[in-house]
């Protein structure tokens, strides 16, 4: 019958067309060209204005385009000269005078000088500055200690602080302190974030929205020229797709490999880079009310949770067990003598029984993702199971990251007993100062959402912040760690080892403890 032959013919034609189309373009997944490094990012950058962004994801691009006055020495979190060649600190610790590197030009050809530095900090800090409206500058409080920035001469700049502030040089190395070209800000105004100009080894090439940010080698760089001709940052939000792209050769380098996918890259053709950094993943316990108001119950939670299993199984070894509030990456300030709470459910049960908290009902805030949160839902679920095993009744509530922060940062009182949290900081001061002092309770503008209070800790932290001698600071921090571990305001869970995968065409790649991604030396065949 005609219909039959007709439909059969139609079907054949359709199948043929699809096959031809597929065949025609089958070779289109060609290898990326040498000299062009393609990096799989976790998200589209918000902006390429260093003063305007907050995410590590964006920092990874920025540190290749911009430079700060100081930077972290490779492989450490110690500060070394960058655009400032040297500095001096007044005795009272409130005046920092920096000598600037000469002969440095921004990518737009304008010179880097003291005026440019002043412009940068005034733009962020002075609400009356003509370009303050290119903000908002959410992390400007990193420099809230700065009372004024003054041009001493063309190549010297002086910062006057309103109080001694030990982490200042470290904060200058943080991406928020990266120096932008004043001329470019003046030219682009609010659109500067999409037309970035800095002094770094790469200069901005193009930004194809949601496809790629391309940076190209800066041939006029004052230091050693970059190893790659160009770097392409591709935003691939879905971790799974990122892994697939890596496997399929669509990207050369991917960061933040999901732990469960690490196994995929263990064979030939890929290499995995790992680097522990200043990261701590913990549970905030509500010390103000409920069962966790009792120190014994907080300790019990620390004993009850099998951290080994979490870091080795759930996180596939991409983290280590945390012992206290300070990550080991701050080697100089880390208290080596502290041992993590062992996994001891029996002891936990005993403590809970002693405190009369058996069978307590706990509300547990879990986030679905977020900066440094690793695999928060599986981790939360595993924690929940462990806590239930010692007799708690745990109810999880999951929130998307922004909502989660909106719930947690104002404090857990009246809402929850525990919440996941993770911090990545550049200085041992930051986290405890912002999240463990009694002066940092949420109503006072801090992040101490669990309402921990210990006068001794408060005192130690204030002293450490104003001390200019690093050894003195280190002693104070170690003492603080011992007390905090004993008081157990948090459950200390994990310190993340950041990872990245490169394919075998990428050479000279290494991760930094700062979690930043310096690609200057990377070469691709």
């Amino acid at each position, binding site marked *: 019958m005609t219909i039959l032959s007709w439909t059969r013919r139609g079907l054949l034609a359709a199948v043929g067309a699809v096959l031809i189309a597929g065949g025609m373009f089958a070779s289109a997944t060609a290898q990326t060209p040498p000299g062009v490094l393609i990096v799989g990012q976790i998200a589209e950058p*918000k902006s390429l204005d260093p003063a305007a962004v907050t995410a590590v994801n964006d920092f990874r691009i920025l540190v290749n385009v911009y430079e700060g006055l100081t930077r972290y020495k490779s492989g450490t979190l110690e500060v070394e000269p960058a655009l400032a060649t040297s500095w001096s600190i007044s005795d009272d610790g409130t005046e920092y005078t920096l000598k600037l590197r000469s002969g440095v030009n921004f990518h737009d050809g304008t010179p880097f000088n003291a005026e440019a530095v002043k412009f940068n900090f005034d733009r962020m800090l002075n609400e009356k500055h003509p370009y303050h409206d290119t903000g*908002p500058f959410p992390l400007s409080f990193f420099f809230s200690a700065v009372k004024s920035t003054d041009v001493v001469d063309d190549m010297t700049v002086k910062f006057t602080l309103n109080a001694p502030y030990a982490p200042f040089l470290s904060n200058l190395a943080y991406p928020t302190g990266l120096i932008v070209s004043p001329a470019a800000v003046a030219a682009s105004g609010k659109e500067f974030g*999409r037309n970035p100009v800095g002094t770094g080894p790469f200069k901005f090439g193009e930004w194809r929205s949601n496809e790629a940010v391309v940076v190209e080698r800066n041939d006029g760089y004052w230091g050693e020229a970059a190893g790659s001709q160009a770097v392409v940052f591709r935003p691939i*939000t*879905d971790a799974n*797709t990122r892994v697939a*792209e890596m496997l399929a050769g*669509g990207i050369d380098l991917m960061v933040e490999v999901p732990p469960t996918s690490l196994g995929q890259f263990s064979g030939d053709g890929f290499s995995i880079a790992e680097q522990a950094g200043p990261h701590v993943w913990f549970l905030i316990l509500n010390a103000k009310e409920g069962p966790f108001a009792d120190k014994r119950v907080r300790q019990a939670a620390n004993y009850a949770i099998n951290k080994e299993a979490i870091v080795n199984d759930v996180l596939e070894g991409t983290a280590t067990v945390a012992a206290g509030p300070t990550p080991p990456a701050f080697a100089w300030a880390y208290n080596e003598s502290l041992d993590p709470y062992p996994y001891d459910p029996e002891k936990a049960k005993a403590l809970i029984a002693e405190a009369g908290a058996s069978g307590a009902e706990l509300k547990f805030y879990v986030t679905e993702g977020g900066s440094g949160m690793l695999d928060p839902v599986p981790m939360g679920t595993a924690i929940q199971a462990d806590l239930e095993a010692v007799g708690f009744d745990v109810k999880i509530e999951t929130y998307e990251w*922004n909502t989660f922060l*909106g719930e947690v940062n104002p404090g857990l009182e009246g809402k929850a007993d525990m919440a996941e949290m993770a911090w990545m900081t550049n200085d041992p001061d930051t986290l405890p100062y912002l999240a463990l002092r009694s002066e940092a309770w949420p109503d006072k503008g801090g992040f101490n959402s669990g309402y921990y209070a210990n006068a001794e800790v408060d005192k130690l932290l204030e002293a450490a912040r104003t001390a200019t001698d690093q050894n003195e600071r280190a002693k104070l921090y170690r003492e603080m760690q011992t007390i905090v571990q004993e008081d157990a305001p948090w459950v200390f869970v994990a310190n993340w080892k950041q990872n990245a995968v490169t394919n075998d065409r990428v050479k000279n790649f290494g991760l930094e403890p700062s979690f930043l991604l310096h690609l200057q030396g990377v070469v691709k065949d």
Partner: protein
Amino acid sequence: MGGYIVKRLVSAVPVLLGITIIVFLIMSLIPGDPATAILGSYATPENVEKLNRDLGLDKPMVQRYFIWLGNMLTGDFGRSFSLNRPVLDEVSERFNATLVLAGTAFVLCSLLGILAGVISAARQYGLADKAITFVVLIGISVPSFFLGMMMILLFAVNLRWLPVSGMYAIYGGGDLPDLINHLIMPALALAAVATGVIARLSRSAMLEVLRQDFIRTARAKGVPERRVIMGHALRAAMVSIIPILGIQAGFVLSGAVYIEIVFQWPGVGRMLVDAILKRDLLLVQGGVVFVAACYVLFNISVDVAQSLLDPRIKT
């Protein structure tokens, strides 16, 4: 006809106005605010409040609505908080990508769906019918994101036939073959469900029509069977298929959200999801108004197509 189009366009205005109110209300009711999203871990109530003031979110709701609406009418959709660029730039750029994806998927699902439905009906209970029914069922029974992920696994990772994600190759792409190459998987994954729905409904529409008296008339005139099916029957069936296409277009547009996430397609759906999560009010509002306007326009053109096809509809 021209008057009809103008009439339909005018009647779309209250619908669009209603949509602006709905989207504005919903976004206002969602807890959390853009400042928290911008500040991230450093969001203290104090910082949040200051930033909200900077962003103009401390004004009363009604006032904010009318400011927004007024600006929009002058073509100013505002600036996105989370992307730090004008909403209109971002939305129109993203919208193009979605149009390419959803448009292709829509054409695919319409053609494949109707073809499958017609063959299925013409060969009712035959082998072709059963085979198509089965394939179509798979299409509508698997979540599209799951299908997409499986396709990536098979065709991109294992067979390396097609690129995993994105809209263009990062290097050396940008032309039409490159686009098609990137489009095949997401468009198919997106079209799967709609193809199934259209095929099933086309099949029953065709069966319905094939029973009509005028088909018997055509046969009685000696019209060849192929023309009876593809001419008389299909044309009449299109009257009930076209509204389904209109509804499915909405589903395809919505379903693009998942596909855009899985295939990293730089479209407006993924952007809107992110924007909702980041509480980027202006971006969500602007984006939704754009999408809705497009949907409304599309539906008007469906109605116009319907009235061109069916002279019985009063225009």
